[in-house]
């Protein structure tokens, strides 16, 4: 996906390439939380999410000196690298799961109802984790990461119509599994 020539990270990235410590810090402040949140929601595992975020930025540091402005927005590039790393891990999990039956995630209401705070958060996280990965990816990119439909579809290498289908199916499934919370 080509950049529109107005990449807000371009100057920072040049600073990173020169070894400017303040550019490194600012770029991490701006982008690391987004990438870590993306990996966490895709993988539902804090340790793996941290590994993915770390590897993504290590690759970014290698690219910093050779970064070609205009080829892609840096944020889009980061998302692409992080998503690829997430899918590597999800694939590995599937391979392992062929030998070991996966633990079923119970996304239904807790027997004692009245969920608050952390419990509610866990319910939502479990429901998101139970979605097929592509539906989860579509929802995380559009809802949580706030990407536009064209950018999200480009990252997923699908059409906007296919993205909308994934979003719609994913939200329907979430609505059903969280019906007791959504009151619907």
């Amino acid at each position, binding site marked *: 996906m080509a950049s529109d020539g107005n990449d807000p990270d371009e100057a920072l990235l040049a600073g990173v390439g020169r070894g400017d410590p303040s550019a490194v810090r600012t770029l991490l402040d701006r982008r690391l939380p987004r990438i870590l949140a993306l990996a966490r929601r895709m993988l539902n595992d804090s340790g793996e999410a941290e590994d993915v975020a770390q590897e993504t930025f290590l690759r970014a540091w290698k690219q910093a000196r050779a970064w070609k402005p205009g080829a892609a927005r840096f944020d889009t590039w980061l998302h692409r690298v992080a998503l690829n790393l997430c899918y590597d891990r999800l694939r590995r999990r599937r391979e392992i799961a062929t030998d070991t039956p996966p633990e079923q995630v119970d996304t239904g209401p807790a027997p004692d109802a009245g969920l608050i705070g952390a419990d509610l958060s866990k319910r939502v996280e479990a429901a*998101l984790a139970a979605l097929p990965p592509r539906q989860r990816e579509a929802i995380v990119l559009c809802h949580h990461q706030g990407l536009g439909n064209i950018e999200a579809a480009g990252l997923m290498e699908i059409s906007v119509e296919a993205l909308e289908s994934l979003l719609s199916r994913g939200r329907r499934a979430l609505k059903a599994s969280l019906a007791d919370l959504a009151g619907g």
Partner: protein
Amino acid sequence: MVMMTLERFEDLAQTYGGEIARWPEGEREAARALLAENAARLSPVLAEAAQLDRLLDLAPAQRPDAALIGRLIAAAPQPAAVGRRWIAGLGAALGLSAAAFAGIAVGVAVGRPQAAAPVVVAEQPVVTAVDTSSALQDALAEPSEL
């Protein structure tokens, strides 16, 4: 402005959620117009979608901890990399000078055993100093370009 059907409005709410601002840019204006004309029917559609949005917002994000940030800062390109190139340049210059000095010293010592060290030692520093200062200038010039 392209007209929007009620069905398309409902589809968009179920797809992108209850905030029209997050719908595809090209359809927002038509959606707002349709909502204004059909508020009684479409407001509940948006409210229901927004309810799921709020639940989705509860999916935990993870804040980077200090250790991760520290590792990434340590691994980032460092200004010291520039310093290392400077030192490498200086080291190479000094190494060449030392080698030249040693070579001449050995040559003279072999050729003129009696005159050996004092003469060579007296002459050689001049050669060494010139080479080193030239290499030093080259090496020193590098950081200023960055």
